[in-house]
């Protein structure tokens, strides 16, 4: 055990450095002596700062005076009971295996947190919030949309009533909590939104773009899926959670902070959003099947909407798109349709079941019958038929 340490002493009253040496006297006392300094006392009255990197260790004398020692001064033997937690942390920080484990823990936490923890935690909160609580927010959202961009529908009343009846049938009869709204949206085009609180907005342009009412069923089934699975609030909560965590990480990276936080937040929320689209698609397949309609109509609706959005071509944006690749969605719908066909042989061919004949049949019925081919040749990057509206 070393019992004398040379360091720099400050009396805490004047900012003047004194070279001084701290010595141990007996087992419980010290003396400090140096240029113009002289003091002594019990070791129990001293405090020492934990070791950290190569910064100075500081002995605090209790009256504001301090002695700065070299980082590797073996002073800890004087204070066997002090700062054991931080002494352990310091040892870990100098240990290669501990570093490796720490890197592993952080990387794992990052992955698990992003793809499991955040969604799980946010969903747990989201499902505790009553849907009514979202309603006023949803009304405000619709209000905003009406003010900027959406116009009154031009569909005639009979047509609306017919579509509303189909919507009600899918949503679960008379008592369901959802509401269907029609709007004209020349700017947005063929589209449908699920608004927080249970409202589904369908544009006139969507109704015009679809060829068969069963395609309409497929689109609103997807939107009902968004509503029933509470996607709007879940997405908002997940996004907020990611933003908070990212802000904690980048909090003191200062300055570059905004971009450093924004990019991963954006990528991750896009990932969640794709997950929700996928979930809504599968919900739609099940809902259609339960109403004895083939998911084939979902694929059909996708193809029509794709043709209605000619400006969107595959490009950079498909990698960051909030919607899964359209071709993939159509493929999945076709698969679901095949499963439906084998489960319901009695409905075919009346229900226009999938399979080669159905597709051929469909092609021959269609006047500009190039939509299927075009979709295969140059599939567009995204399809906005089911965009969530949150803000």
């Amino acid at each position, binding site marked *: 055990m070393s019992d004398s340490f040379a360091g*720099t002493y400050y009396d*805490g009253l004047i900012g003047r450095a004194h070279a001084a040496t701290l010595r141990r006297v007996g087992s419980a006392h010290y003396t400090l002596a140096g240029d113009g300094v002289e003091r002594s006392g019990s070791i129990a009255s001293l405090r020492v700062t934990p070791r950290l990197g190569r910064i100075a260790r500081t002995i605090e004398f209790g009256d504001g005076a301090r002695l700065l020692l070299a980082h590797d001064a073996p002073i800890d033997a004087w204070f066997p009971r002090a700062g054991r937690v931080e002494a352990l942390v310091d040892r870990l*920080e100098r240990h290669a295996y501990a*570093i490796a484990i720490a890197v592993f823990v952080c990387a794992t936490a990052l992955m698990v947190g992003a793809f499991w923890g955040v969604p799980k935690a946010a969903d747990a909160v989201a499902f505790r919030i009553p849907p009514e609580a979202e309603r006023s927010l949803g009304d405000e959202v619709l209000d905003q949309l009406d003010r900027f961009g959406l116009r009154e529908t031009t569909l005639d009343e009979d047509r609306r009533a017919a579509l509303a009846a189909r919507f009600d049938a899918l949503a679960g009869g008379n008592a369901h909590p959802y509401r269907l709204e029609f709007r004209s949206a020349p700017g947005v085009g063929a589209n449908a939104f699920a608004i927080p609180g249970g409202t589904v907005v369908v544009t006139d342009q969507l109704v015009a773009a679809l060829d068969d009412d069963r395609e309409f069923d497929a689109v609103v089934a997807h939107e009902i899926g968004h509503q029933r699975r509470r996607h709007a609030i879940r997405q908002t909560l997940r996004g907020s959670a990611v933003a908070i965590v990212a*802000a904690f990480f980048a909090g003191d990276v200062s*300055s570059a902070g905004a971009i450093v936080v924004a990019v991963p937040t954006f990528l991750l929320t896009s990932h969640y959003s794709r997950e929700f689209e996928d979930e809504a698609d599968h919900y739609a397949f099940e809902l259609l099947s339960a109403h004895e309609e083939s998911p084939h109509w979902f694929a059909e609706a996708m193809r029509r909407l794709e043709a209605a959005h000619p400006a969107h071509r595959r490009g950079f944006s498909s990698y960051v798109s909030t919607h899964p690749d359209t071709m993939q969605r159509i493929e999945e719908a076709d698969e679901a349709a095949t499963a439906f066909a084998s489960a319901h042989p009695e409905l075919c061919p009346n229900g226009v079941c999938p399979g080669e004949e159905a597709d051929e049949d469909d092609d021959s019925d269609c006047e500009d019958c190039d939509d299927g081919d075009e979709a295969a040749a140059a599939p567009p990057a995204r399809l906005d038929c089911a965009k969530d509206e949150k803000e």
Partner: protein
Amino acid sequence: MDDLTAVEATSPPPPPAWQTVPQHVGPARTEHRFEFTGDAREYFRIWVVNLALGIVTLGIFSAWAKVRSERYFHGNTRVAGDPFEYLAKPWPILKGRLIAVALFAVYILAAQLSWKLQVGTALLIAVATPWLIVRGCAFRARYSAWRGINFRFEPNYGRAYVVYLLLGIPVVLSLGLMYPYVKAIQKKFFVEHHRYGGVPFAFRATAGQFYPPYLIAWGVTVAIVFALSFMLGMLAVLVAGTSGDAPPEWFMYAYLVPFYGSYFAVWAFLAAALANLAWNHTDLGPHGFRSTLKGKTLLWIYVGNTVAILVSAGFMIPWAKIRLARYRAENLVLLAAGELDDFRAESRADVDATAAEMDGLFDIDIGL
């Protein structure tokens, strides 16, 4: 204000203040350059171990991690041969963090339920902001020391409300034209309420000196937006003009990427100019400072840091922090007029950690 005019009267005609020229007043001063002795590898070990412990303890350890990190940066920053010290204890920081997280959760939930509730919460936070800034400064200053003497921030809440809240009104009414003026007032408040031991800091920059950097930054931003819009408009006509189709989607990126890029660049130059302006007009008793940050270098550091952090999924954060701290320290000089040994301490006052933590979470900039 009297000594300010006196100083200017004896000085030669001042060069543009936003340039990095120090003001020499009085006799020759001894230059003490700030040093930074932190090391990216060493700090990486500390950072990653503390982060992992924070994760394993569900955030509880983060207060200890914060103290270790602050101690590392303070302890590795030296001037005139002596290191700074960070003296805060983890417990008050942990308490502050818990309160801050609770408040933030309320804010998020409020946003979900109704925008009125959210606006209400936001207003509440706005009203609390000056108080938070004062408490945050006070905490940070109180627990920073050099040569055994603590810094201190004199809490003047009334003035803080005028400077950080009420002066927002003329900024809005003047469509932002008053912004540099208000920034100058805020900086003056921030600097002049700090003291080292018994000696208060003084701030000599005038509001007028804050205008040139902002005007240049605004002018350059407007010019860039104009040029970009013009070039992309031309390009759009070339690409899509004949077909009449909507422009392809990459157009949005062709606009946004250079726009944000140049915004980032302008911002880095502005940050360097403002930091130089503030330090070069800050005095501590008879001593002064000289800051020589370069916009170009700062931008290079920011770009490198951002890319490194994104590419490494965050594992280069320690490297980025060390790099920035080193550049900042190495471009700051203490201009000592005579002896540095004569600083005296004054009596102490305890400050709650809550505000310092809230500032960190809500990202309120209180840095000099």
